């Protein structure tokens, strides 16, 4: 499979504060790629750079083998969709209106919906299971429902890559699983490359094809879950004692942080 995102010597700083230092890695098409790491390690910054929200130098980021800087906003939007960590819900659009906005990269300037737009929206809402909420106002939904609506909107862009920044952060376990299952479904059925930042290493382990562990803006480890999630890597990165064993489901490593009372 081909490389869809290639990161080459990427650095980024806010003022004098270096956030990312010389990152180089690539993401293969159709992968479920999860970025993990402690707070402040640069995960969100990396996401924003890949989404084109933050600007970088020439040839640092290549999307489908083209420098990201050579894409117009609209053409990039047709290839990559971005679901940030927090979205503003201030004005009372309905779910359907909100999802339909995702069709913008494919529409003319006034965004009058065509049949194709309506069909795509319908499908997106079906996949994300928010179709029954179509006429409800966004600000009346629960966090989990809102998250699924934003994912539906991203899907309407018909992207080949979808970037999600901690989509499960404020969700309960059932909603977490639903979102992750949804991503996996997209990967398998729609061949979408999923790139996700997650704070939950176990979810990352269960779903991720490849993991990237970031520490202080540098790559601490990159590879399959079993390769990345070793207690050495994790202790060095997170600075706390962990226990790594095999998940009872059998397919992935399981990480258990160790409370102080269990340490001898």
């Amino acid at each position, binding site marked *: 499979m081909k490389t869809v995102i290639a990161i080459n010597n990427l650095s980024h700083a806010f003022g004098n504060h270096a956030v990312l230092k010389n990152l180089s890695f690539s993401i293969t098409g159709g992968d479920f790629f999860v970025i993990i790491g402690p707070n402040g390690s640069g995960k969100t910054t990396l996401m924003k750079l890949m989404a084109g929200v933050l600007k970088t130098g020439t040839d640092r980021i290549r999307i489908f083998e083209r420098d990201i800087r050579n894409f117009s906003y609209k053409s990039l939007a047709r290839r990559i969709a971005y679901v940030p960590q927090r979205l*503003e819900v201030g004005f*009372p659009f309905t779910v359907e209106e909100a999802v339909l906005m995702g069709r*913008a990269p494919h529409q003319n300037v006034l965004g009058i919906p065509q049949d194709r737009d309506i069909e795509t929206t319908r499908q997106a809402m079906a996949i994300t299971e928010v179709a029954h909420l179509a006429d409800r106002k966004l600000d009346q939904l629960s966090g989990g429902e809102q998250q699924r609506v934003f994912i539906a909107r991203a899907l309407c862009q018909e992207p080949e890559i979808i970037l999600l920044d901690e989509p499960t952060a404020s969700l309960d376990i059932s909603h977490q699983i639903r979102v992750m299952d949804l991503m996996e479904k997209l990967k398998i059925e729609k061949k979408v490359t999923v790139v996700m930042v997650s704070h939950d290493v176990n979810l990352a382990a269960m779903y991720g094809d490849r993991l990237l562990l970031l520490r202080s803006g540098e790559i601490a480890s990159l590879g399959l879950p079993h390769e990345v999630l070793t207690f050495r890597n994790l202790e060095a990165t997170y600075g706390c004692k962990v226990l790594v064993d095999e998940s009872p489901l059998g397919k992935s490593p399981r990480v258990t942080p160790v409370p102080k009372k269990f340490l001898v």
Partner: protein
Amino acid sequence: MAAQTSVTKRLLLVIVLLTGILAAAVLVALSSGSSREGMGASLAIIFGQEDANTTLETIIWHLRFPRVLLAVLVGATLSLGGLVFQALLRNPLAEPYILGISGGSAIGAIIGIMLGLSRFPGVTFCAFIGSLATLALILVMSSGTTILKKDALLLSGVMVNAFCSAVIMFLVSLTQDARLQNIIFWLMGDLSSADSLTTGILALILIPCFLVLFFFSHAMNLLLVGKETAQTMGLPVKTVTVVLLVLTSLMVSATVSYSGLLGFVGLVMPHLLRLIWGPDHRVLVPACILGGGAYLVVCDLLARTLPQQGEMPAGVITALIGAPVFIFLLKKSRR
């Protein structure tokens, strides 16, 4: 699945309905005035009946018509200005004067009146320069941070307006009788000096602005989901923000420089219309133009005809109606 198929339908409905209301308001406004002729006689003239009472004809077409047209234009501009700033700053309390336009234009206008200049072009020009100056000041002040960081713009605007208020009060305290009355009328919003030439010029400037803003109405929808997200959905956020900011500021400045600081139109109308028809700007932009216009026509009509002698400043009526409506809207939105 009702909503999506009907953007066009809702747009049409809104345009037809509000155009009807606007037309009715204009008819009533043209038929009423301080000369206290009956409405029937006026309506007859408007609809072209031959029995020409030339005095009434002159009154209707040369005195009332420019003023009513001005009310439509100003009401539309202020409502639209409020709508755009609320979208740009993602703040429902934004209103068209928020970026120092009121403070700057008021100082300019007062200086113009104190110098004894005539309403147009003298005072208008001074007011316009004043509002451009404060706008530039605010942009410079908030560009230390990111120019688009909405809080920086807002805060700078509030501070500059507050400072301008102090300057205005100082200037007012220096002024004597006749000019004082002119200043107060300008500060409250005053459509009484409308004439065909200036209203025509204003129309030529404003109508293209309205069209451009309609063009950007879906972009405003997208801006509301967040700057960064909007960009990843294909919107050139920086360019759009600058264009909207500059265009709307110029539009509001030009209008306010001529008609004075009519309040509450730009704050209340967008909220009222949003409450009825939802937040889709493709519908709200025409709604604000037509609805805002109708609202000010009615307010100005009341300002002209309610008092036994003379007239009130139209700004008094917009405030008297607007404030309770705003409180009502606030309560409604809590639910």
